[in-house]
């Protein structure tokens, strides 16, 4: 266990990429063996503790909790999906949803799904714990400057609200009001709203005096907007092509074109915004190393997705149970999820020696 190493903090980008890649893995495979590998990797990173700049959401999230969804998923799926050849038992009658065959296949599939969900919960828990709120807001692209400011104001104002709430409660008592029941409590909402609005007005004046200009839609140029609409058209076209029974590669092509178009648009839109975003945290060598594993993993996953004939990750227990395929190479790639942990351990050794 990584008990001895010096605390190391990774850049928020590392955690964003890490979260993204892991989610990609989880959503692309229902192969239980691979999912177990992913779960193990995430669990190790999780157990290694805070490797972000700030540990927040300090409520502990025990590992077993992420596994409770496994039996639940199995139970739910087995009881509601009546497909598969290995029958456990049969629920008689005509109860909607429940009546029918209960099969091993459905149970396994449910368990796999539950495991996927467990991994997702765990991944987000790790993300939330390792990325501080200001860093999270700084991850928002420049084009969302106004919204990032809305977010920051809200974050700053929440603790003030608690104080104000208490102040109003006291003011009510001073005025001889006895607070009874939920209705009186909710009645405090109104004075709270009034003082919040007054606060907002003063804040707005301060912001204006200090040079804040709200960013309008970055799509202020009509050609950008038109291109945006085109992108939506492509996505819709992709779906319709599937809907009308055209080959899958057409849909894929349209989807990827749309994605590329949106990417280009965001890039263009971003260049129109005249703000800088101050990120006190620099991206260092360790961050580069830690981001390597997940990046490589997602790249390969996307490539594999583009050429689906290989179907490396594909597995379905239906119609009859088979042993899921397990390729050591794939498992090795999945270990990329561990890279923040590995970098932390080695960096810790460096600093000791």
């Amino acid at each position, binding site marked *: 266990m990584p008990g001895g190493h010096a605390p190391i903090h990774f850049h928020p980008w590392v955690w964003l990429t890490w979260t993204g890649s892991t989610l990609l893995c989880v959503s692309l495979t229902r192969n239980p063996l691979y999912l177990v590998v992913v779960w193990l990797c995430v669990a190790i990173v999780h157990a290694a503790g805070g490797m972000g700049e700030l540990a927040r959401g300090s409520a502990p999230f025990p590992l077993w909790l992420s596994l409770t969804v496994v039996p639940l998923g199995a139970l739910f799926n087995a009881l509601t999906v009546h497909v598969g050849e290995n029958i456990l038992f049969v629920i008689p009658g005509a109860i909607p949803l429940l009546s029918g065959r209960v099969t091993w296949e459905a149970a396994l599939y449910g368990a796999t799904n539950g495991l996927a969900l467990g991994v997702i919960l765990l991944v987000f828990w790790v993300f939330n714990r390792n990325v501080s709120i*200001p860093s999270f807001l700084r991850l928002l692209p420049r084009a969302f400057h106004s919204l990032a*400011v809305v977010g*920051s*104001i809200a*974050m*700053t104002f929440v*603790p*003030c609200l608690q104080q104000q709430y208490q*102040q*109003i409660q*006291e*003011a*009510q*008592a*001073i*005025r*001889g*009001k*006895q607070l009874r029941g939920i209705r009186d409590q909710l009645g405090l909402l*109104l*004075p709270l709203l*009034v*003082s919040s609005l*007054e*606060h907002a007005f*003063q*804040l*707005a*004046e*301060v*912001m*204006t*005096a*200090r*040079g*804040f*200009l709200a960013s309008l839609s970055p799509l202020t140029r009509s050609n950008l907007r038109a291109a945006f609409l085109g992108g939506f058209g492509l996505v819709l076209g992709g779906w319709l092509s599937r809907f009308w029974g055209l080959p899958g590669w057409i849909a894929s092509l349209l989807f990827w074109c749309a994605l590329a178009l949106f990417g280009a648009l965001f890039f263009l839109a971003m260049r129109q915004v*005249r*703000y*800088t*975003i*101050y*990120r*006190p945290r620099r991206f260092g060598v360790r961050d580069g190393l830690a981001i390597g594993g997940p990046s490589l993993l997602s790249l390969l996953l996307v490539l594999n997705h583009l050429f689906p004939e290989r179907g490396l990750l594909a597995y379905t227990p239906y119609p009859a149970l088979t042993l899921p395929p397990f390729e050591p190479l794939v498992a090795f790639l999945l270990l990329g999820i561990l890279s923040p942990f590995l970098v932390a351990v080695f960096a810790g050794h460096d600093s000791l020696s």
Partner: protein
Amino acid sequence: MIRFRRVSFRYSRTEPWVVRAANFEIPRGSFCLVCGASGSGKSTLLRLINGLVPHFSGGVVEGEIEVNGLNPIQLGPAPMSRVVGFVFQDPETQFILDNVEDEIAFNLENAAVPAQQITYRIEETLRGLGIEHLQRRRLESLSGGEKQKVAIATVLSLAPSILVFDEPTSQLDGQSAEEILTLIQTLARQRQMTIVVAEHRLDRLLHFADRLVYLPACGEPPLVGEPQHILPHIEAVPPVVQLGKRLGYRPLPLSISEGRQMLQDLGVDQADHRDRLLATDSASLPSLPPLLSAEGVSVRYGKTQALSEVSLDLFPAQITCLMGANGAGKTTLLRAILGLVPLQQGQIRLQSEDITSLPTWRRSRVIGYLPQDPNALLFSETVLEECLLTLRNHALPEEQGKVLDLLSQLGLAELVQRYPRELSVGERQRVALGSILITEPRVLLLDEPTRGLDERAKARLGELLRALKTKGMAVLVVTHDVEFVLNLADRLCVLKQGKVIADGMPIEVLRKTGLPPPQIMQLFPEHEFRNVEEALAAIGEVLSHMPDKSDRRAAPACHNGDNKLCPRESPPVVR
């Protein structure tokens, strides 16, 4: 350089002018004080400099404004923010984010300063103000003074050449205000900045200013010129200036040392007239039984002992003031009396009845409490409704006549149907008082009631409290305002680190405890004057015995009909 050419402003075409025919220049590098009562248009005038008025407020502007060659009316506040740094009144509401570093970065981000420079600029600005240790702090953990310093840092980070302060100390306690005023002086001295300050506390900045803008009233043209020329027109001036004015002494003394010089010149600085000077009516503490008493009260917040075994008796028909440094436990004592904080030990007695276990809402029937921010007490749609609400809360009969009587006593008769939160600071405070006094409490506790009030509102509050006192009420006032204490209090208590360290006659306590003395005590350290009137009466008596000196160098200000100054003092006023 700031130039106003015949500038007038009003908030809409149907409303009266707020600023009228302002025509003046503030040269580069000068230190300009803007003064005038609340509501005389000071804030509006300041906001015209950076375009907040009319861009933020709306309204109609006439005339031309030029600030460093730019026109704020055309450009608006965002571009002006690089030229004019604007510091607001209330440290609690002028921050957008939650920590110092991000707060300063906000300005730089919006000005599109390259990201690599931001770190450097933040550090440099903080170092320049001597507050580099605050860089990583959360804003909520800072004191009022520190917050104001950070506010100054945020605007300084863009290296403006003009700094505008809108009453920067009015929401601060004495100690923090002192720090900020010192900082403003240092900035003026060390950097070649133009500084414009609107401030109630003229006493600290007056001898520093080379220019004064005086707004006589809302919609009247401002008087602008050197302090010596403008001061004779201003009513609410610091005691030293007041004394100089009344004695007809020129040039007017602007600081304590100049005041001492004046006394020396007039020959009234000798201490041997003591017997002729009025002694204060040393009324002994009344022998009546106390109305309210706190006995051995201790309060603990987490690890800090806020109050330790404090005992305090409040007597009917007496005004007691409570002073002490920040965190000495003054507010905590008031809250303990009201039952807003749990007592660790001790008890609160009303007459002889123990009310320690009574909930706050029951106590509030007989103990009125005006918290620091009277806004918190205002809930209703109209002033009238505000008072009725209290009666309703206490299940008392809602007699409108009684409420109207009280409101007219408070000078609010014409405002009964107004929305309380739209009124001026002083009016809002009186509405809040009205909502408390309507139950006719026997004890009244006030927490820093003079904060943010101008001289006129302060005087009015003083009168009101005296009237309540004559009705037999026991009044306890927490304050930092020594002048107010000296004028009003029958008794002064001082708290230090949760303990009462002094209790007695205000002047004696002030001398004994080394609190910053009011100007009048600094001028006459040997005497017991409470205000300029008493000093003047005594001096008049002394002077009457020295006829040869009585009008030496006296040059009373002369006026002609339309308020223009005499030709020999020109060119003092630019209109």
